[in-house]
């Protein structure tokens, strides 16, 4: 068992709450998809909650930035976006965080320094590198967290970006959310290496491995790395090993893996683990957890009610948000 005594109990409760909110939100989103309230792609984050919540807890989004791929609901909630605006976006309503223009793949909140929500595999990596360029240019002490999946690491955009970050001393933290499958293809079938952190050496950058199934390990790992990056303005690559419980997207039954494998990961569930650690440390009780869960289920239901009651975008809005 981990020693939780050095952490503020309220801070730990918030982490547990943030992860559980993501889990309940995603479960509800899947349900709403079944009711055809949501269309298109829906890439769920179940199982990966510790990654977004642990890393966001480790940085300062008043100066740091965060960009991810299309599996973005977890990050959106982790940075503190209102579940109502996210659910309304999934419903395609004008009250959605991007006015019904983006849907599941394109959550953005510029005020919270969350720059999406990017749909092309790996294409956010150069963008994040450019955000880190601005931080270097302004010497503002910020770092940029750039998340992408293990499928994206083979794109040229990854290669070009890490080299640019190295030669220009950009404070970018490249995080492979390694859930071991690029859509339905197991990593080992398409990658020459299974430990992605070794790739960093090819760019003269440090590489790290972090267990993404444990909130505190993610938090401590990212915190240390972010502090180093802030000081040295040297980018790095992190192989953050995690697992998604659901298919690649909602339409994927995930027949390419065994039930045993899935069950094995569920034994290390980030929410179950943190809950157990906190109960062991007597920071919460089973009843507290149940009450929290009920509260979050209500919160998510309120998000659905809000999305349902919201207006469709007016037709003229299609011409808006194209040019500044």
């Amino acid at each position, binding site marked *: 068992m981990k020693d939780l005594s050095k952490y503020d109990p309220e801070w730990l409760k918030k982490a547990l709450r943030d992860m559980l909110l993501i889990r309940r939100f995603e479960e509800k989103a899947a349900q709403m998809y079944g009711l055809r309230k949501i269309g298109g792609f829906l890439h769920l984050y179940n199982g990966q909650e510790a990654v977004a919540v642990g890393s966001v807890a480790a940085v300062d989004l008043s100066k740091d930035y965060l960009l991810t791929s299309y599996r973005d609901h977890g990050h959106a909630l982790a940075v503190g976006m209102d579940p109502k605006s996210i659910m309304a976006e999934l419903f395609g309503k004008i009250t959605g965080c991007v006015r019904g223009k983006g849907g599941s793949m394109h959550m953005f909140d510029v005020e919270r320094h969350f720059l999406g929500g990017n749909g092309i595999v790996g294409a956010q990596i150069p963008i994040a590198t*450019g955000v880190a*360029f601005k931080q270097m240019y302004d010497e503002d002490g910020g770092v940029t967290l750039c998340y992408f999946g293990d499928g994206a690491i083979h794109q040229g955009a990854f290669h070009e970006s890490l080299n640019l970050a190295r030669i220009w001393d950009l404070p970018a933290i490249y995080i492979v959310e390694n859930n071991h499958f690029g859509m339905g293809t197991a990593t080992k079938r398409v990658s020459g290496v299974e430990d992605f952190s070794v790739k960093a050496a090819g760019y003269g950058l440090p590489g790290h491995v972090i267990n993404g199934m444990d909130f505190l390990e993610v938090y401590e790992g990212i915190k240390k790395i972010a502090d180093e990056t802030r000081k040295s303005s040297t980018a790095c690559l992190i192989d953050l090993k995690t697992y998604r419980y659901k298919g690649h997207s909602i339409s994927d039954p995930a027949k390419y893996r065994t039930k045993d494998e899935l069950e094995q990961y569920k034994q290390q569930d980030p929410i179950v683990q943190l809950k157990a650690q906190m109960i062991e440390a007597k920071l919460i009780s089973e009843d507290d957890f149940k009450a929290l869960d009920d509260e979050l289920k209500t919160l998510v239901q309120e998000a659905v009610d809000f999305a349902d009651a919201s207006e469709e975008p007016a037709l003229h809005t299609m011409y808006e948000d194209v040019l*500044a």
Partner: protein
Amino acid sequence: MPEIQMREAIRQAMDEEMERDGRVFLLGEEVGEYNGAYKVSKGLLDKYGDKRVRDTPITELGFTGLAVGAASVGLRPIVEWMTFNFALLALDQVVNNAAKMRHMSGGQIKVPMVIRGPNGPAEYLSSQHSQALHSYFVHVPGIKVIAPSTPYDAKGLLKTAIRDDNPVIMAESELAYGWTGEVPEEEYLIPLGKADVKREGADVTLVSFGKPIYMALKAADQLADMGIDAEVLDLRSLRPLDEDAIYASVRKTNRAVVIDEAWPVASMGSHVGWLISKNCFDDLDAPVEMVSSEDVPMPYNHTLELAVQPSVEKIVRAAKRVSYKE
């Protein structure tokens, strides 16, 4: 008024805007120590240092995407593509990111960046290095595209583009960098989306942009000798497009020839031709003609490569056809 080369006009625009605004920086292959593959950025590294003039590795996708990211958080990058032929590697970043960041974010983000470099056929370069690819970019909502034909226009348009809060792509021409023209010493700006009548005429409208404008002007001289008074309309900006200027000219002359050095299929030229046919149908005395490149990859052989492209002779013939004088 001083007469300067096109490359100097572009350099002046970048220099003046970099001096005015510390958020503006230049990046691209060979833009710094080498002073630009076509010497367009000459002296800028010495003046602004390597923080603001950045030699990149040969990674068009990477540095174009980096510029999109930097622009999304408030810098104002100028990207130099060594040629548009290499820009295809960066197409994803232009189409899916530069043009979409604002849309995907529901209007939260603006992307004030300029991408510029030579486009269109040059000489003896064969099929991979001699292509007019502007139509690829004009097709996409969320970006602006300009294509100047004179040093005066290049400087005025580029300065405006650098101040614009949207991604603007400027298609230049390798063969036109040495062209000279008058450029005033005092500051001026040219708005995007305004065409310019380069020669007034009453009998036929020659609509073009970029390098072929000079062919159109020469063709107009030859046509004058044949008693045909041609108007040459320089679009200057392809998106936004000054449709009113096109229609005003065609409604005056009742005849139109569109010249675009790109291939004929799904091109800027074919789009302008369709617009004229649709919106000036009752004013036209002849079907709209288009002079484009032949629908083939560019050959190396000089005779063949010239035959592939628009020429003064082809424009004259087309103008005579719409005037029923051939």
